[in-house]
């Protein structure tokens, strides 16, 4: 029977406690850091050579869906009642709202060095030392809202503009496309500056600290953010019944994207699974 992923703001006190406890336990066992390493290793950019799977590619959504399932599987081996909650950043938008509470993810980083000092993932609590970071800092960092040049989280209207696009993705299937649900949600815009980050990317920017770098998985909010992104894929599928993951077939040898992206029925590294097999999760989990 399918299990349920809940809005983080709807978790009971017991559910929050058990989620946190399972996260700390997989961290203690060394399992968590492998997830951090995997995300670093699979962040390939589209101006480089080689296959792109996790970002700047159609498989952004199935790759992170599978990544979440693996994390959830590790958590459920510790406590079978636990699932990954989602953070609806169109509703919980302040630095003090869910999930930034002491009994869930803890709060903002302090001003001097952005160190998170509250909640179960604070370095001082002794259970969350960063081992696979971009920097040598051992503590979790956040800069919610970007203190130097404040920005806002993406709005419901911005998210809707992605959901309204009926086409999953378009050629050349990278970070430069201006149409298609996938990149409207992933959020690569033109140029730099505030308007160039949308939806998914903008949330990484808004949280700041380790969430901004290649080792963003070090902040547990990574999973709550990506569960919400994953929910958007499910919503998009409901809204556009006749549309599916694209491309259906791999780009041909004359395409610049030949062997650079994963088509619907191709394997999605590092797993032995295709986007096609990851489209329907209704037998595994559902969102409430």
């Amino acid at each position, binding site marked *: 029977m399918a299990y349920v992923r809940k809005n983080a703001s709807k978790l009971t006190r017991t559910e929050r406690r058990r989620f946190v406890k399972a996260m700390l336990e*997989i961290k203690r*066992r*060394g*399992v968590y*850091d*492998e*997830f951090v*390493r995997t995300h*670093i*290793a699979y*962040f390939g*950019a589209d*101006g*480089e*050579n*080689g*296959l792109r799977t996790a970002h*700047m590619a159609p498989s952004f959504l199935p790759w992170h869906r*599978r990544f979440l*399932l*693996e994390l959830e*599987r590790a958590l459920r*081996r*510790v406590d079978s009642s636990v699932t990954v909650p989602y953070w609806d950043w169109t509703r919980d938008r302040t630095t003090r709202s869910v999930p930034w509470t002491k009994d869930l993810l803890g709060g903002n980083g302090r001003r*001097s*060095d952005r160190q998170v000092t509250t909640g179960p993932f604070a370095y001082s609590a002794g259970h969350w030392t960063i081992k*696979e*970071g*971009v*920097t*040598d*800092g051992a503590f979790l*960092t956040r800069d919610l809202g970007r203190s*130097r040049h404040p920005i806002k989280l993406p709005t419901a209207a911005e998210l809707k503009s992605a959901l309204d696009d009926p086409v999953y993705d378009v050629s*050349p299937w990278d*970070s*430069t496309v201006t149409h298609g649900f996938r990149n409207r949600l992933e*959020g*690569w815009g*033109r*140029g*730099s500056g505030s308007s*160039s*980050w949308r939806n998914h*990317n903008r949330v*990484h*920017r808004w949280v700041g600290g380790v969430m*901004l*770098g*290649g080792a*963003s998985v070090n902040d547990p909010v990574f999973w709550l953010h990506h569960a919400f992104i994953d929910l958007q894929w499910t919503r998009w599928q409901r809204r556009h019944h006749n549309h599916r993951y694209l491309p259906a077939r791999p780009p041909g040898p004359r395409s610049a994207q030949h062997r650079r992206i994963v088509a619907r029925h191709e*394997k999605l*590294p*590092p*797993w*032995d*699974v295709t986007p096609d*097999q*990851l489209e329907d999760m209704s037998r*595994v989990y559902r969102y409430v």
Partner: protein
Amino acid sequence: MVMGASGTPTNADQGSGSPLRDGPGARTRRELGRGLLGSVAALALAPVVAASRPPSPGRKARHTDTFFDETYRGRRIRGMLLPLMAGAPAGAEWQITVDGRPLHLMRRADGTWLSMVDHYQSYRTPLEATRAAVDELGPGQRLRDLAPGPVGGWHAHTGGHYGVRA
């Protein structure tokens, strides 16, 4: 319920090894980085070695299209364009250091640059991307050398030296 390797639900874990294992033939950034280092070892290391020298007093910022060297917000940042090696990732021709530690840049299809520190936004030039990375470094924090080199225990082809069995 857990997910089997096929992506379909299974009711028991088969203990089939790391769920994060890699398929054969996949090339990760680290592998590409190692290849680059091996092929141009002396050349690639040159700016790193140079950057590790203490800055001379009164040094001024110097920029060209292929080189930069300046102190930005108290950090010494240096970058040098190297000849592009066959098979090297497109972004790897720039060797960048922040206080002597390598900063890995990646290139977007639109020609802009992003760094490991600031990974969800891109910048027009390697210098801008490097300054943006410095903006995000906390006081006293230094870059870790994530790539290339013998990093961690995870390796794409072996499927992880660190078992993920809980």
